[in-house]
């Protein structure tokens, strides 16, 4: 999960808020669902930052069928309260 600054002082600067371990045959093959419960700067502020989820595919085009690897999806769990959300 990435936070992108919208402020002129540091525009287009990225911060990593959370990440999960890599998957794959050398890491975690098969259907995998992983989570990261330690979120850096977890409070959302849409007036200063935009937020997005990111996945990096690392492929070897010489290795054969590309459809062996797929991304099912991602989700973010968050809380809101009367004074915070």
């Amino acid at each position, binding site marked *: 999960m990435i936070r992108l600054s919208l402020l002129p002082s540091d525009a287009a600067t990225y911060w990593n808020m959370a990440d*999960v371990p890599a998957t*794959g*045959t050398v890491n975690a093959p098969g259907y995998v669902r992983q989570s990261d419960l330690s979120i850096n700067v977890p409070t959302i502020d849409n007036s200063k930052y935009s937020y997005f989820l990111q996945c*990096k595919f690392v492929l070897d085009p010489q290795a054969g069928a*590309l459809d062996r690897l797929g*991304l099912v999806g*991602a989700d973010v769990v968050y809380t809101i309260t009367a004074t915070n*959300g």
Partner: protein
Amino acid sequence: MPRPFPRFVLARPALFLLLGCLVGAVVTAPAASAFRGATKQITATQTRTFSCPGLDFQPLSSDNHSFNNGLLRSAEDTGYFICNAVLPTRAVGRGRIVSGDLGQMTAQTDPYVSRLSPSRFMTIRSITSSSTAP
């Protein structure tokens, strides 16, 4: 000598005023109640989830190409794929979950690797030029 107005005629403005108040109360009460409900704040912490399906992930660089693999997002080459996280301001993130489908892969030496952890403080240059397995 003019005749005095009958008593019921003299009382008619007051009667209309009272009738207007009653009608106004009946008409505005439901609207006022709905307004109170709309502005009512939550009193306890609520846990919610935002999700992004794989097909909503789009290549970060135009040099990267992807294709729909059923309901999954697959890539033709190494690269980053992103999906907007639509979260309300002041929400507090609790965790993130990413799912991958590597069901057809069995060989431990298979070079296909899904790297789901982004680089810290990455720049556009590092994203588009990345082509080696981590």
